[in-house]
Structure formats: structure tokens, C-alpha cells
């Protein structure tokens, strides 16, 4: 997503760096160039896949009280 002058003003404000009005637009262009280059990371498949689990019986094996695949807990909210 391209960065505009308003975003630079906001980010500079967060970073506590004074950026002159005249520098906002050129800085926005520079930062947009860098962000556009960084965005190639979207190509990388990074979904975390769950490879273990699904064994409710083992999880409940030590429960003092269980029913229908759930822990049975005392009433918490009155």
C-alpha cells in the first residue's frame, strides 16, 4: 500500500521526528518505494499447519471430571 504525505506526518509524529512540510511528499515517495519492494513477502506461504493433536481422550485422561469430550468445571460466573 503506498504511503502518502499524511501517513508520513502521522508516523513521524509517532517516531517524534520533525519532518518539514516540504519533505513529507518526497519522504512518502521514498518510503512507498521501500514498502512496495517489501511486499513481495506476500508471496511466501506462511500458514502454520497443525500437525499434532486431535486427541481429546488423552487431554481429558487426568481430568477429575469430564463429559462428552469436555472438562466439567464448577460454575464460575454467578
Amino acid at each position: 500500500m503506498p504511503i502518502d504525505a499524511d501517513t508520513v506526518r502521522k508516523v513521524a509524529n509517532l517516531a517524534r521526528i520533525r519532518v518539514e512540510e516540504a519533505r513529507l511528499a518526497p519522504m512518502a515517495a521514498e518510503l512507498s518505494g521501500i514498502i512496495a519492494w517489501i511486499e513481495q513477502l506476500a508471496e511466501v506461504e506462511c500458514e502454520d499447519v497443525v500437525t499434532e493433536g486431535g486427541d481429546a481422550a488423552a487431554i481429558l485422561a487426568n481430568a477429575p471430571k469430564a463429559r462428552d469430550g469436555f472438562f466439567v468445571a464448577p460454575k464460575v460466573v454467578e
Partner: protein
Amino acid sequence: MNDLTTLTLAGALAGLRARRFSSLELADAHIAAIESARALNAFVLETPEQAREMALRADARLAAGAAGPLEGAPLGIKDLFCTKGVRSTAGSRILETFVPTYESTVTANLWRDGAVMLGKLNMDEFAMGSSNETSAFGPVVNPWRSRASNKALSPGGSSGGSACAVAADLVLGATATDTGGSIRQPASLTATVGVKPTYGRCSRWGIVAFASSLDQAGPLAKTVEDAAILLRSMSGHDPKDSTSLPAQVPDFPAFVGKSVKGLRVGVPREYRVENMPSEIEALWERGVAWLEDAGCEIVEVSLPHTKYALPAYYIIAPAEASSNLARYDGIRYGLRVEAPTLREVYENTRAEGFGEEVKRRVLIGTYVLSAGYYDAYYLKALKVRRRIADDFDQVFDRVDALLTPTAPCAAFGLGERTADPIAMYLNDIFTVTVNLSGLPAISIPGALDAAGLPLGLQVIGRALDEATIFSLAAALEKSAAFQAKPPRWWTG
């Protein structure tokens, strides 16, 4: 007398122990060399008086038979290391007056072992740069020049002052730091040896922070053996750095010259990038042949996420930098620009104290960490970083080390690449993967290109296995037989 500056560190240490010359004579020879090399702008602060005092104390210990492993050896210190009572600027205007009241662990280790400090070395501001041109004190000039012209070339960065001082024989060795390639790329551009050890091998305590999960100290040296000697002294567990590894420090110099027969060395196909000069490709092939001759088995391997390392780095490093550099607020140390309100003091101090590249990175870092963008950029980059480390893990099941070029180009002209930040970032394409993965790597001079400029080879090792990369680098160094030195055009 000036011949003493052409010694290697190992040669000088032997000469000192044999009392062929004194530490004071050695220091004086280097002080004279530094004074005659100011055109290179390698030093931001010369400390000749301190050097002579330390040398005299070293001579006393040598005479008493109580010499440490580096006793009497004059070194240069990158200005990112805090040195007690000696101005430490990190190459920034904002720290121009900062005199630390404490000593970094790495430099303290060097002084414990008898080393002598010649001064503080120039660098890119807060280590953010690959050409030394972001320094508030002006760029360092590479001692190497093209055969075709006298144009001033960059020594690389960020440890450009360290690399330049070693290449020009101004110091016997230097400290440096490497966050994305800042030791190895300058080593490649100046025909010096640079080591980025395993993350956690050297304490970061007292080193001005840039990106704390990536920053690591290491040596720049004239030879592989010298680098091993320096790293042995610099390394070690430090309770003051929570990321310092409580691991034994091997006797690194003992692995220099050790046989590499039977080692399996991987050549990653993704490092064959577009537009890479054919001479770099050719040097890489020669490196493969040298290792085969030495009895290594070469294996082609794949590191599929390599191309994503630089973009991930340019999220993670600026994010950490924006947080680390929040401390420069004009209140406790460094520059203060007075203003009517506290907020304006902050904003004006940081506007005047930071250079353009530092501002750019702090703004990028603030942006990628801000609400709404954190997941899309920062969290994504952390996941990609994991994939890059996984690539290495899988490859190191099959090989003992990797061989790659160090940098995608030879030294370039000062001012030639400052207009395009991304083109500058691409200097670190072969080095940055190792920082993201925490692995050790070394760069050694391999050859001169047709213009007479040095090109480096990189060996990457398993975590905490610097020993193997020292052995492989020494084997490559022997085969490369790189002897060239830059003509001393800068004197007189």
C-alpha cells in the same frame, strides 16, 4: 620502522614475545601510519596517547613474562563499541559528544588480553548503511582504486573504517559489527578477512544497539589466522547480555590449517542471482575447485527462501531500530536542541541529530509496527525469517558448511549509489540470510577483478561451528594465495 605495520597480527605477537621490537615501537609505527593516512578518513578519533600508555604497560607485562594472548597488539575499535572515557559516536551527530562511563564487554576482553587501542573507527550512522556514506563524519575512502581511474571508492559498510584501517595497514586488526553484512561486505570490498560469529558468541553489552536480534560483533583482520586469534579473545559468555550464549569458546586458531578432507560443502543454487558479474561467478567456481582439491565433497543445495531474506530484514531491522533508537530523546545524553515544549525538544533533537537514512529506517520501523500494519508486515517478516532458518537447518543435515560469494559487486564509487536506497540494500543479498538465522560466516579475499578490485568468498557454518569455517577459510586462503596490496597513494 614503518615495516612493522605490514606484519600480520600473528607475526607481530610472535615478534613481541621474542622481544624483536617493543609494543611501544609497534604502536608508534601504527600511529605514524594513521597520521599519514587521514585522506582515508578511517578514524573518527585517534587516541595516540592512550595507545602509548597501553603499549608501555604491555611492554612491562611482556618483560615480566605475564603476557596475555594479544599482549602489545595495536587495534582499531569501531565507533559502535562504548569505550570508557573515550568518545563513542556510532557515526551519529546525536552522539557527537557522548563519552561512555563504561567499557563494552568485547573491548574489555581485548584489553584484558593485552591489546592496545589506536582509536575509534568511522562507520555508517548507527551501522545503517553498506557504503560508509551515512556517517555523520564523512565517508571512508577505500584504499583500493580501480586500475582505470583515481576515483574515490567506497570501502563498503557499515564497518568501512575498520575494513579500511586493516587494508591500509593502519591497525593489526579491528573490531566490527554485522547486522546484515556489515563485517563481511566491507571485507570483500577491501581484501580483508571478516567474521560474523554465531549470534550470542560475542556479548552485545556496551555496543550501541541497532537491531538487537541481528547485531553481532566480530573481527576484521589481515588473515584467517589473525581473525581466529581476535575472535578467541572477543568471544565468551557475558551475564550482562541475556542473549549471550553460555558456550565454551574453542581455541579458534588451532583450527586454522587443519585438514578439510572429507568435509561436505554445499553450494546454494539460489545465490546465482541475475546480473551478477561473471568474474564473481568465476571466482565462486574457482573456490569450489580449491575445496575439491583440498579433499572436500561439493554438493549443490537449495535454500528456497533466499530471495525473501532482504525484504524480511528491511522490516525486522528497522522495526527493532525504531524501538532501540527511541532512547535518543535529548534528555540523558547526546545532542539536545532546546525548544519551548518537551515534545518539540524530542522532535527537533531527533530531526537534527539523525541523518536521512536513519530517519528513513526509524519511520519504516514505526510504520510496520503501527496498529493495522503489524500483522501484515512485522509478523509476516518473523514467519519468513523462520522459513529462512528452516532452509539452513535442512541443508545442514547434509553438509558441513556452505560456500558463496560475499557480495554481488566489487567496490563502487562514492556517491554512485546513494540516490536509490533499495539498490544499496541489495549489497547484502548474500550476507543477510546468515544474520536472520544466527549462523556464523566468514569472508576472505579471493581474487582481483579485471579493474584490479578485490572480490570475496564467504563460508557459512552451523551454529557455534566457527571452528569448521576457520578451517575451510584457511584452506581457501592458501589456494587463493591472495598477496595483492593497494599502492599507498594516500601517504604524503
